[in-house]
């Protein structure tokens, strides 16, 4: 799933924390972050200010049901 533009970063991470299984973010630059990890959440937040980090990035949930938890932040594509 693609990450929507202009999301509220804190709310997004709060929802990630509610997910049952691991949630990965893959940027077009080759980054791969497991957003359930605390360190990754901080890196994700810091990197999000970079111009290309969020553009075209993909969110992959290990558990399909977790996409419903993140529905406000991701879209098909």
């Amino acid at each position, binding site marked *: 799933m693609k990450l929507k533009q202009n999301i509220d*970063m*804190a709310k997004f*991470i*709060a929802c990630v924390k509610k997910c049952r299984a*691991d949630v*990965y973010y*893959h*940027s077009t*630059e*080759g*980054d*791969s*972050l*497991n957003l*359930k*990890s*605390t*360190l*990754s*959440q*901080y*890196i994700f*937040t*810091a*990197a*999000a*200010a*970079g111009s*290309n*980090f969020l553009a075209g990035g993909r969110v992959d949930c290990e558990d399909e049901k977790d996409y419903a938890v993140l529905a406000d932040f991701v879209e098909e594509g």
Partner: protein
Amino acid sequence: MAGQIHAAADLGAWCYGANGMFFHSTADHQEQLRVFLQIGNVLQAAWQDRDQNPHILEDPMEIHWISEWCTDKGLLILLGPFLLKNVTTEALMNRLGRMSLSLQTKRQYLGVMESIPVMSYEQAAQYAALLHFTLYDDEYERDRILLERTGTADEEEETQQTVKNDYARMAEMEAVMLDDLKSGTFDTEELRAKGYQGELQHFGLSDDLREAKDNLIIFCALCARAVLEAGVSLQTAKLLENRYICRIERAEQTADIGEIMRAMYGEFLDHVKVLQEDSGLSQEVRRVREYIRHHYMEPLELSQLTKQVGYSEYYLTRKFARETGEKLSDYILEIRISAAKRQLLTTQKDIQRISEELQFGSRSYFDRVFRNKVGMTPAQYRQRGIDRETQAEH
């Protein structure tokens, strides 16, 4: 007061309204730090501490904040962030080193972390007392101020997740590379798109060099098995495997391991490609080509080659040219140029040394032959490879 503290200690001041609304901050990197406040549970903890006492809060990443609730005005005031110990860039890089991150992302994270000031606990307690005095005109004993943790990042959990991530990525890369070996193709763009940067993964054992060697020896054995499945002879596969295991064992630093891996993978791949090209050739010509591929670093005399198949020099050269469409001497040159290209890109060997090892004799002859075949000199070819790698990193 906010201005003075910011000037004196580079410490930002933050103000939140009673309804949780963010009002103002004097800190740099506000956008990211506001999210840090929330994901580190600092804001939530500060909201609960409405007791007219200053607090020093430590988040799961050991980033600290001073907070106090201003009852009269219904405001939450925070000072921060700051660190209580000096975290070096090297330590931060080590922590990030195990993760699959681009250079740009590492820079962004380090930029934020390095902007956070470092101070002693005594200094932090002083600022907390100053904040309390400003809000309530009351002197607060610094000894009474305690550190409160808002959560902990489970190191073991972090490591497990990172390693799990790395194992998955490494397994995927290995599968792609071994499939490529079997098919005789190599798609660097695909590997780069998946975040592969030509390095081997490390899993936190104490001896990095030993670990890197073990990883590559295992990968070498997998490559040998893959080329065997692709039809390369057992003798060739084992010869390559043994040669590279010896080279891996001789490596003196981890930086050499990546170089050896690229050379090793390239050579295994070349053998599969050549095998595909050899299909349709007579057994004798295949045997001569294989002999050349194994002995291209030695002076190759025509008499040696004829011994391999039992033909006369005249008959062998004609048969070779008829079946392959090129002269025997051109094929030897092609194999040596191919090896030279591989060494120029994957090693730091002196060009003169490459020229000698590949039996070109003089450097000027090597330059001339290389330019005729490749369209540029060996030095230009090496520089172009370096430029492309630099561009890919950026």
